[in-house]
């Protein structure tokens, strides 16, 4: 391709009408506190698994809402359910149950 002196990124626009909300809805029904998340990132700062991997609960929360379930599935494998994120969350998101329900939802919808 001709080099015009700049790169083109792939389209990162999220079409909320087309996203797969099944997983989010499933989790929300069982653990409504997921809706309280303000994506502040406090949980990410303290994450035990984040020490070794790219896991961050904030990202999980965000990606879940955007319906990017394949990344959620991959990232969540690293969580040890240690609970640090839950203790620091300023909004009282029940993070560990959210994670358990996500994994269950992934099994249910075979994502």
């Amino acid at each position, binding site marked *: 391709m001709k080099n015009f002196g700049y790169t083109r990124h792939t389209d990162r626009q999220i079409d909320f009408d087309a996203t797969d909300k099944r997983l989010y809805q499933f989790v929300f029904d069982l653990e409504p*506190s997921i809706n309280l998340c303000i994506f502040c990132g406090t949980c990410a700062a*303290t994450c*035990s*698994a984040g*020490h*070794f*991997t790219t896991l961050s609960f904030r990202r999980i929360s965000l990606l879940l809402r955007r319906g990017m379930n394949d990344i959620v599935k991959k990232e*969540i*494998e*690293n*969580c*040890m*359910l*240690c*609970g*640090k994120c839950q*203790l*620091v969350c300023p909004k*009282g*998101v*029940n993070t*560990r*149950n959210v994670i*358990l329900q996500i*994994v*269950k939802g*992934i*099994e249910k919808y075979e994502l």
Partner: protein
Amino acid sequence: MNYNHFVIPFAAGALILFAILVARYAYWIVQMPRSDRRKAWTGFFRPAFFRSLWEVFRESLIHKKVFRVNAMLGWMHMSFAFGWFLLIIFGTIETKFHKHKVFNMPYDPIFLRYFEHDEKQFFFSQGFSFVMDFLLLILLAATFLAIFKRIRSRFFGMKRTTRLILGDRIALYSLWSVFPLRFLAESFTSGLHHNGGFLTGTAGIAFSSFLPLQQLELPAWWAYSSALFVFFVFLPFSRYNHIPTELFLIFLRNCGIKTSGRFSGFTEFEIYSCSRCGICIDKCQLAEVRPQQTQAVYFLQQIRRNILQPQTTFNCLQCGRCTEFCPVGIKADTLRSIKRTDYSLEYGFSYKYAEEKIPPPALPVDVGYFAGCMTHLTPSIKIAMENIMKKAGVRYHFIDRDGTVCCGRPLSLSGNERQARLLMRENKYIIRNSGIKTLVTSCPICLRVFRESYDLGIEVLHHSQYLLRLAEEGKISLKPTDAVFAYHDPCDLGRGLKIYEEPRMLIARCGELLHTQQEKNEALCCGNSLADFVTPEPRKQEMRDHTLQELLLNNPDALITACPLCKKSLTYGSNVPVKDIAELVAENQ
């Protein structure tokens, strides 16, 4: 032979009950692991048998542990159980005297007054009438108390009573009617034939003055026999199933059989021994903040009815208070954690990064310090520990200085035991490779899983135990102050591992330790247990505030605890400083 058609309901009921129980118990015994069955068979010939008899007397008849909860409640349970037991014993002996025979029909003692009118037949028959009437009086009083308890449970020290299901209700009402009906039937017969004791005799004379006893006598005996029929038939499907089952449970427990990692015949005995007394409801802090029926009694009830909900299974702090107070000694918290493994996930978690980590080479030190995730979240504790050990001149190896993989207990509390094993294997490898002889941890959650599931083969201590050892060896000296402290027992450290004294002894060296209302094995949970997956955050805070209220009742200068999670949880709601025991020691060193 004495016979009247009204014995049929009683006899049929008793036979049905017997058949159901025999079938059920045989099935459970077959389901028990072979090793457990062997223990049970040999138990008959060992002191375990006599220990069981003594325990049956103490707990199934006298109900000592219920007395510990409340005297009125204990009295009610005792008069039903021991009173009825004596009634059966004396009734049987009385019948044997009457008949001058060793063998008689099994229903004879129950309906003796109807069949035998001549009471001066044998030596001490007057005495028997008196005793039988006295026991009946006690049972009538117990029935009255039981009805009263349903209306005003607070008189019995209970804020809440168990919500009963249909089978329980029918059995309950039939039990309530058994003794009043017996009283009526015996009084009516005595009114006609003058064969009653002080109670039924007097009542008989009174009744005969205004009632047509000739017509009423037989219906009364029919009613009495029918009430027994209903009670017997519903017993195996109701709370009263605990009466026969508990005897087996006590024996099996005395034979050394324990609740192990999975459900078996033994756990069935345990589950069916719950009397739904409801003592565990008030003791459960969740009952204060949420209306959901999730306490031990409801959890066991749902298992028995085969309608267990995941919500119930996962809505529990695993604080162990229900087990602590249960008069039957049912390990409901352990049963719940076993039940959680039914929901374990097939895929979902994998810890490849843990396997890729290379453990550091062994160091020439004896002591290893493992802070744990939660201590990394409350860094003042690990700083305090490092300062103390440095000052004391201890050479140690900080195993998870840069953070490590989690100990695995939070994961196994979610039922995912297989995945938790992956983390455990990793930590075990690191700890084994470090060459240490003593492992010290600041986190009771880690400590519990290290001791119960890791099989490390080295000494594993909580930091309070280790610090006390340093103090006793004179490696650290603590300056006493005028400050007064209250101490919060963490669930995993206290009820979980029975470590109550070490932190208290350390506090006593630094100042004055106040007593709190419920302490040691009765201590409340901080509310933030990692075992509970369901309770919303605001409700957890309510529990925490209630716990704090009790702890701070005597206005201590600081609140001391021995768990980083408790510290984190309590700090948010406390108006006095909350410190870990290590921080207190570091400050007073």
